[in-house]
């Protein structure tokens, strides 16, 4: 039986000058699948998203959405940036921001209509943001803004939702809420989700698959199959060790000078925060 893939990356190569950032990457993602894109700084996670979004054309390889090869930006892909920077006094309400997902690319001034309002209310409710929908966006917390940005992306009616480090400004609790929300929306609406994160721990138990990037190489599959010392050592090109401590995953570098760097990726941050919270 052949599985329909909503997104396929075939043999993607991206070079910046002499440097190969993505080195023959193959990825296939099914509808409704929740994929965590994990990797150290500079591994090429953002670059990979930019290729999928059509903002960067790869030196080699192709992107297929719904079986069709795409070269440019694609309507079927929704994008959630990490953060928006708005002054607290900015005259923009949550629902205005979300409404931009509906018709922000069109010419002219948005005319209020019952249908428009209903569609905006529907996604606001889906991300549980109705209660702060009329507050100025610049006054909302990082987690609240994140929900609005997700609602905004949902209104573009995407088959694939890309989120670049949505958790990095959030505390542990908001991070878990956003992960749970995105997981639920993906399942309910059949949207494939790719969520970029440094630390895979908040995603454990929620993501269907992990896509691990390191040194230009990728490994994708179930968490238990990919997050293995042998698999990750092959990606990094040197010995790394995967440690599981109290239900959390740590990736520890084997080479002395790399040890700290890789160590941090595995979830030291996470552990620190949780200790603080527990105490």
């Amino acid at each position: 039986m052949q599985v329909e893939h909503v997104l396929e990356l075939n043999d993607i190569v991206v070079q910046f000058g002499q440097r190969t950032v993505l080195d023959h990457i193959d990825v296939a993602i099914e509808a409704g699948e929740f994929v965590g894109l994990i990797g150290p700084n500079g591994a090429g996670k953002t670059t990979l998203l930019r290729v999928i979004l059509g903002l960067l054309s790869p030196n080699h390889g192709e992107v297929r959405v719904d079986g069709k090869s795409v070269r440019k930006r694609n309507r079927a892909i929704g994008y959630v940036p990490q953060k928006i920077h708005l002054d607290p006094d900015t005259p923009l309400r949550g629902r205005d921001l979300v409404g931009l997902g509906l018709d922000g690319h069109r010419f002219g001034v948005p005319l209020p209509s019952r249908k428009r309002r209903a569609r905006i209310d529907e996604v606001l409710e889906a991300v549980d943001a109705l209660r702060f929908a009329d507050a100025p966006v610049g006054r909302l917390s990082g987690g609240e803004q994140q929900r609005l940005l997700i609602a905004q992306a949902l209104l573009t009616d995407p088959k694939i939702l890309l989120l670049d480090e949505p958790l990095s400004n959030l505390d542990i609790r908001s991070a878990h809420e956003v992960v749970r929300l995105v997981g639920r929306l993906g399942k309910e609406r059949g949207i494939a989700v790719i969520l970029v994160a440094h630390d895979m721990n908040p995603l454990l138990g929620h993501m269907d698959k992990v896509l691990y990037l390191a040194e230009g190489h990728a490994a994708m599959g179930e968490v238990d199959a990919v997050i293995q010392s042998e698999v990750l050592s092959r990606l990094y090109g040197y010995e790394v060790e995967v440690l599981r401590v109290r239900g959390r995953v740590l990736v520890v570098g084997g080479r002395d000078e790399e040890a700290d760097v890789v160590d941090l990726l595995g979830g030291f941050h996470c552990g620190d925060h949780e200790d603080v919270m527990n105490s």
Partner: protein
Amino acid sequence: MTTVLHYVFAPGLLQSEEVLHAFLVGILVAVISGVVGVFVVLRGQSFVGHVLTDIGAAGASGSFLVGVNAWYGFISFGILAGAGVEWLGDRARNRDVATGIILSFAMGLGSLFLYFDTRFTSNASAPMMVLFGSMFVLNPGVIPIVTFTGLAALVVLLLIYRPLLVCSVNPEIAKTRGIPVRLVGILFMILLAIAIEDGSLVVGSLLSTALIIGPPATAIRLTSRIGLASVLSAGIGVVATGLGILLAYDSYLWPPVHRGWPVSFFIAVLVLVFYLLSRLWPERRYAQGAGSARREEVA
């Protein structure tokens, strides 16, 4: 009754062609400045606004030397500067340094031009016109083109309203939606230049940013709806400009010399008064947002 009317509308007010022109152009400038200004606040570009004013002033000073109307000097330098600033770079730091350098060069050029204007041409009043505007002495020849560029800027702004809003909120989202972010940025700069330079011609380069910054600052204290803020901002600008013209016309009867007070003075004072009044307005919108949130959580 008629005495009251006479008091408000000094005799001959609406018979005077200069005054009608002042109302027409002044109100148009106020509307554009008000709406553009809301986006200036949203995009954090007030500094660029000041830069365009000063560079436009250099252009206007130069225009007296070559014997064309000041408007051509304002607008050509303003648009070039606006497009230049946008083209210079995306990185904010880089941009501020580059802008600052261009700015000081333009100021130097402007002072040289003004020096020549007063020394070697018959335009001893050039500095006055550049700095304080020429609301009541507008050359009828430029009124059609000022009106046309102003209306065109307004139409274009309403056309690109939504894409501009997306770009202002987050350029990355805009790019993924297929909006040409660079082009929209340059287009907005040109609109800003038109608003500022048309304003400079009328109320002078000292004050054209007052119409860009003051009314939006007032409007966003009253509402957090972007559409309503744009309308309010334009409205406040129109009222300040209209009243300013009335008062300036009346001031021909005032001491000390019965020669009239500058209209820009009245507009500046009114803009400030409106802003101060808006500060009396309770900060209802935040309290409301939080309050309704709490109510729903309880429910």
